[in-house]
């Protein structure tokens, strides 16, 4: 296993989660402790394990293509739950262009 050290700022950017500066030390300490513990896995010999061999694996069940929606839900609940709603849309801070 690679040397356990989490680049906290990078991972928080990936996970889109903000940690207050004063809490970073505590997080770093806990995360490093857990990652160190996790190194235990290196004791196991996993070289012979092949993740791709899927003997008798079940196939995912397929849903018949019908547009009867058993989960139709009242728009009012959706609107009530929405933090910001405008002109029939969820409202978010301005963005330029679509990515992906």
């Amino acid at each position, binding site marked *: 296993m690679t040397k356990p050290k989490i680049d906290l700022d990078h991972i928080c950017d990936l996970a889109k989660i903000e940690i207050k500066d004063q809490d970073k030390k505590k997080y770093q300490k806990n995360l490093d402790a857990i990652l160190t*513990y996790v190194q235990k896995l290196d004791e196991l010999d996993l070289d012979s394990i092949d993740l791709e061999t899927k003997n008798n694996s079940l196939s995912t069940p397929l849903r018949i293509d019908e547009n009867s929606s058993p989960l139709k839900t009242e728009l009012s609940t959706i609107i009530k739950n929405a933090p910001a709603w405008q002109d029939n849309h969820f409202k978010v801070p301005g963005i330029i262009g679509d990515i992906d």
Partner: protein
Amino acid sequence: MKKLHLLTTIELNKLLKNRTITCQQLLHSYLENINKNEPKIDAFLEIYKENALTKAAQIDKLYDKGDPLPFLAGMPIVIKNNICLKNKKITCASKILENFVSPYDATVINKLEKNHLIPLGATNLDEFAMGSSGENSAFKITKNPWDFDYVPGGSCSGSAAAVAAHFAPLSLGSDTGGSIRQPAALCGIVGLKPTYGRVSRFGLVAFASSLDQIGPFAKTAQEAAHLLNVIAGHDAQDATSAPVPVPDYAQNLGQDIKGLKIGVPKELFETGIHPEVKEALVKALELLKKQGTSWEIISLNTIKYSVAIYSILAFAEAASNLARFDGIRYGFSAKDAENLDELYKKSRGQGFGDEVTTRIILGTFSLSSGYIDDYYLKAKKAILLMKKEFHEALKKYDFIVTPTSPTPAFKIGEKINDPIAMYLSDLATESANYTGLPAVSIPCGFTKNNLPIGMQIIGNHFEEGKILNLADRFQQLTDYHTKMPEFLEEN
């Protein structure tokens, strides 16, 4: 007569059927107990009093008509607040969902309705079911009914405590690494994690999708069997739900246990086991031996790696599952965000508690570029190895029996700053989640300080009936499950 809320559902069923009591009387008895004792326990996030009273009146009418009703008709049940009920707040004990209202019912809730059970309240939990003590709730800390200074276990802190405190005879929880079984052990009740796929996950707010299972809490294996009858079965809305027929678990109890073989993995006795827990377990095994079973020490080496696997795999799935809480469609949304990136980061940063944040970061790391091979994929391989080991063991033995938790309940605050110590509470339970095997925890003793001790019985896939049968037999030989926390005896 004993107070109604102190009776078992088996006794209550008779009384309801012959109309000695009404559902409303029964409900009032529970409400009274809640009223008096909930402030000591803090098991609930919400009590559905009005709904429950209406429901009880309706079911009374059905009983009065004399139509045959399902066994648990009229029984109150409390529900972990990560299982969706239509038009109810589903908070997962998180600030990020503090005001969230579910527009739909979970499949298990539909099944409760069909069987005329009465949802009585939403129970507290560790935020998003992440924790082993109940201390990670954003709203309150549930206390262990046996000693209010102690944790009830987690993450189903409220569901376990509520049943132990006789606030309801039954409850539902979810189990990802031991969240049903460990608090059941610490609260001295029965908690069952069914085979993966046995109970639909539709409507259960996901923690780790490949491990999560909904399961019952009750005071006896017999009652748990009745509740499993209600919630088990295939559901087309959950692609991982198993198309396997559901036997009548309650009807099939009382089978002979003579000749059954039990394997007890030595790995769980090598590190950090509390001596009283060990003692109670050996005593329990010896008692079962007298009934014609046999037990021997076996080796299941991969168990030692349970917590390491958990810290990678469960957290990785969690990081992805919790990405939907982004402050846009529902839930907490930071008011001071100036752009999209800030909206995400502040909403999530302020909305999630410390433990959830820790797990999201670790899970994101384990899947991130450059690390996925060494972390996520390695954990998946370790699981395959574990499956092989358990498969081999269950060819030789009918059951694998372990202590449910290496220790009895610990003090509130005792482990909160030591994540590894906290995670090790689930060392014995997590393997059943990786392997998908059913496992039940039943009370098997008390410490000198009068704290409950639990024994875990793991069986083969879809053999819930068999482990419940052994548990039921054990409970007929013992009276641990009939003991009550002190405060109940006082009033």
